[in-house]
């Protein structure tokens, strides 16, 4: 079976003045895959992903999503097309309740069935295990739970592509294990792009891994291939 | 009066206004540049400079020159002290949050203005200038015998007005020396660039802020003391300077002192000229719309950094 490309980029670059953050990246993500994007700090991962979801514009290149050129499309329209993004630094509505947070995520796709809102919010919260916290003020929760709330909001959107930016940062070991289980289940219906530093998580989840350094892709392949790749070793361990 | 002399007169008047405006706007710009807050009560500090000058000259009976000199020194200091109190008691407690500061300074504006109304009263009071020699200005015309100079009736200025221009230049120079050449100026610029790093280097940021806020108010008050012999002190006189200072600082670029000076001269002059040839109201309409459109389309102004 030929894998359908969900998201791809052609020669995407981004520079800030003289600094080149991302350089000529060709990237392809087939539907249904769990892809991990790894690399040392400053490799350009978050910049690249921010261009994918539209938070920052590309300096040059093309981005295709579901067969359409979305390079010029503003962020909110890409989200409407089926992308979901969770922030590297937790960005929830801290003063609102957990319920309200997820309701805001779910609301846009329920325009004709708004009475289903409560049900959908409940479903999303249950999947991440936060259903008991529905009435809590989001900002009052422990950091790990706030990260889970972000994931719940992503799930609440029922996206085609879920982009997770360092989701397990700050989570305890037990929480990380739960997270792995959750994402495996999510991936049955959603394509997942995961920026991660935690190698265990990457190895447990990823179907394929893309490695970036200095704004370019230096390696791409299955977990085994990457584990044995010299260039990757050098990038991480400094040769 | 013909057009030529009339224009010269308008430009001279404009230059006087520009001088005062430069000082007032520098005060506002300094505060925004270092502290990143917009002080809506700035015009009231200006007004208080004038009112204190009146009070001081009124109290010190005797030669007008001595009274004026005392006012020139004491009034800005009094206003500075008041400003420091506002900073410590209010602005610091708000942690200099931009939006909350603006709202709080609006409150300060009304408190200062209305207390002045209650004590000083609703009337305008004049202050005698220390000297006021009328100086006729020559104009030229081409006749059969060549270039001839004469003194058109009505084309004159006073020695005091020239003094104002000179004093503003001296004060401006003083501020420049302070900012660019002194250790204090270095501390101020460091705090402006990066508050946290400045703190890490042992600079007492909160005291710097109090100082800057006081200094900004003092410079405005100084401008008011200079202008009050020409203009009269009135409790509502802070409104126009505030508006014009805003215009200058935004067009010149928030945070750039050089931009402020350039914009103040341009706007003071053109405001003066338009006011003479058209009406002051039209000049103000054009000025406010100019600020609005600059902010909408070119928020960096001429020289400065972006407004967040």
């Amino acid at each position, binding site marked *: 079976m030929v894998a359908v490309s969900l998201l791809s980029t052609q020669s995407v670059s981004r520079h800030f003045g003289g600094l080149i953050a991302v350089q000529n990246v060709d990237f392809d993500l087939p539907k249904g895959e769990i892809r991990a994007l790894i690399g040392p700090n400053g490799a350009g991962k978050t910049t690249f992903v921010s261009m994918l*979801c539209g*938070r920052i514009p590309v300096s040059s290149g093309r981005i295709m999503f579901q067969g359409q050129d979305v390079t010029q499309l503003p962020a*909110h*329209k890409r*989200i*409407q097309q089926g992308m979901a*993004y969770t*922030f590297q630094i937790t*960005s*929830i*509505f*801290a*003063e*609102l309740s957990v319920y309200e947070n997820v*309701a*805001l*995520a779910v*609301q*846009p796709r329920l325009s004709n069935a*708004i009475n289903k809102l409560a049900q959908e919010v409940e479903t999303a919260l249950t999947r991440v295990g936060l259903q008991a916290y529905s009435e809590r003020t989001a900002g009052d929760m422990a950091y790990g739970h706030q990260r889970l709330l972000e994931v719940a*909001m992503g799930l609440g*959107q029922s996206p085609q592509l879920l982009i997770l930016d360092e989701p397990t940062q700050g989570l305890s070991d037990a929480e990380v294990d739960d997270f792995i289980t959750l994402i495996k289940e999510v991936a049955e219906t959603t394509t997942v792009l995961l920026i991660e530093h935690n190698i265990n998580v990457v190895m447990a989840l990823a179907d394929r891994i893309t490695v970036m350094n200095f704004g370019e892709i230096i390696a791409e392949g299955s977990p085994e291939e990457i584990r044995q790749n010299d260039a990757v070793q050098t990038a991480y361990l400094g040769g | 009066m013909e057009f030529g002399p009339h224009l010269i007169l308008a430009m001279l008047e404009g230059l006087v206004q520009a001088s005062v405006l430069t000082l007032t706007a520098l005060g506002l710009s300094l505060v925004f540049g270092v502290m990143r807050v*917009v002080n809506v009560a700035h015009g009231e500090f200006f007004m208080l400079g004038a009112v204190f000058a009146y009070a001081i000259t009124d109290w010190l009976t005797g030669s007008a020159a001595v009274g004026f000199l005392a006012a020139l020194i004491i009034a800005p200091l009094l206003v500075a002290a008041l400003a420091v109190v506002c900073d410590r008691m*209010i602005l610091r*407690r*708000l942690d200099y949050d*931009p*939006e*909350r500061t*603006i*709202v*709080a300074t*609006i*409150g*300060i*504006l*009304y*408190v200062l203005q*209305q*207390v002045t*109304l*209650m004590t000083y009263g*609703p009337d305008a009071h004049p202050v005698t200038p220390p000297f006021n020699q009328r100086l006729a200005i020559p104009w030229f015309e081409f006749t059969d015998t060549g270039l001839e100079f004469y003194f058109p009736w009505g084309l004159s200025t006073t020695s005091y007005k020239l003094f104002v221009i000179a004093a503003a230049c001296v004060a401006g120079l003083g501020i420049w020396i302070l900012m660019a050449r002194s250790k204090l100026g270095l501390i101020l610029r460091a705090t402006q660039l990066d508050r946290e790093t400045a703190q890490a280097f042992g600079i007492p940021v909160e005291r710097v802020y109090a100082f800057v806020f006081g200094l900004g108010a003092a410079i405005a008050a100084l401008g008011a003391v200079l202008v009050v012999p020409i203009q009269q002190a009135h409790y509502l006189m802070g*409104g126009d300077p505030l*508006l014009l200072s*805003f215009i200058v600082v935004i067009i010149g670029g928030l945070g750039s002192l050089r931009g402020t000076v350039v914009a103040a001269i341009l706007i003071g002059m053109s405001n003066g000229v338009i006011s003479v040839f058209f009406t002051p*109201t*039209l000049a*103000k*309409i054009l000025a*406010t*719309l100019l*600020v*609005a459109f600059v*902010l*909408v*389309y070119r*928020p960096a102004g001429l020289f400065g950094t972006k*407004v*967040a």
Partner: protein
Amino acid sequence: MSRELSLHLSLITLLFALHFILPEYHHGNLARVMVLAVYAMAYNVMFGYTGLLSLGHAMFFCAGMYGMGLSMRLYEISAGPAFVIGLGVSAVFALLIGLLALRTIGVGFMIVTLMFSQAIFLTILYFNPITRGDEGFVIPQAARQIADIDLSDSGNRYFAALILFSICLLAVLKLVRAPTGRVLIAIRENEERAKMLGYDIWAHKLGAVVMSGTMAGAAGAAYGLLFGTVGASFAEVPFSILPLLYVLLGGPGTVIGPFVGTLFMFYLRDLSSALTDAHMLVAGVVLILLTLYARRGIMGLIREKWLKWLP
């Protein structure tokens, strides 16, 4: 019926009942308060719910007031259609201002709205022959009639104000409980996050500005019609600061807050004006105290401590 709705309907009923009880002085005051509360509610939609702090709302109030007033004065249009014209003018004006001002954010937005409002005030003064400038003009009693109901009669005036107030109160309640209202709050709380949930931020903000401006214009047109005066003082800076004050005091982001704040400040100033001419002094002091200590306002505090369900 939900308790939210019954709370707000009770307020309306209370105001209705007060017509029969209040002595004339307070009766007239309350009519004025209700119209000003509409102005404050309009401000709340932009500031309390969407997080856009404007310093120039007087321009929207005046767009309605002068749209209505000038139609009547210059073209002898009758009161009813003139009111509608006032509404139309303020809606279009709010759209224009929104398109321009929303290109700025934060402090820039505050200053831009302040500047546009000042320009409007100065323009009213400049076209003195038409607008009668600072002095303003009076709308004669004979003209202030809709369908043969004389609006200068204190009873009719009170009910007209109550009707306008009730419509706007319930409209705001509906808005904040609707999905759109939730989005406005989200924009206020965390704009970037709201954008990344797929919401068109700019369109929502523009909608809030237009709704807010039109409602403020309705208050302006109503004020002119009911109290018979149209004047430039309603375009000056203090009149832009007042709704900010009313909303901050009453509780930003609550539906009833603006009314509470308006009522409170109106009487506070009324009382203090017996002592001194400096009536904005109270406004200044209250603003400072609110910013320092009580940013949630009266109803905000009540909501936080006791009535968590308060919209």
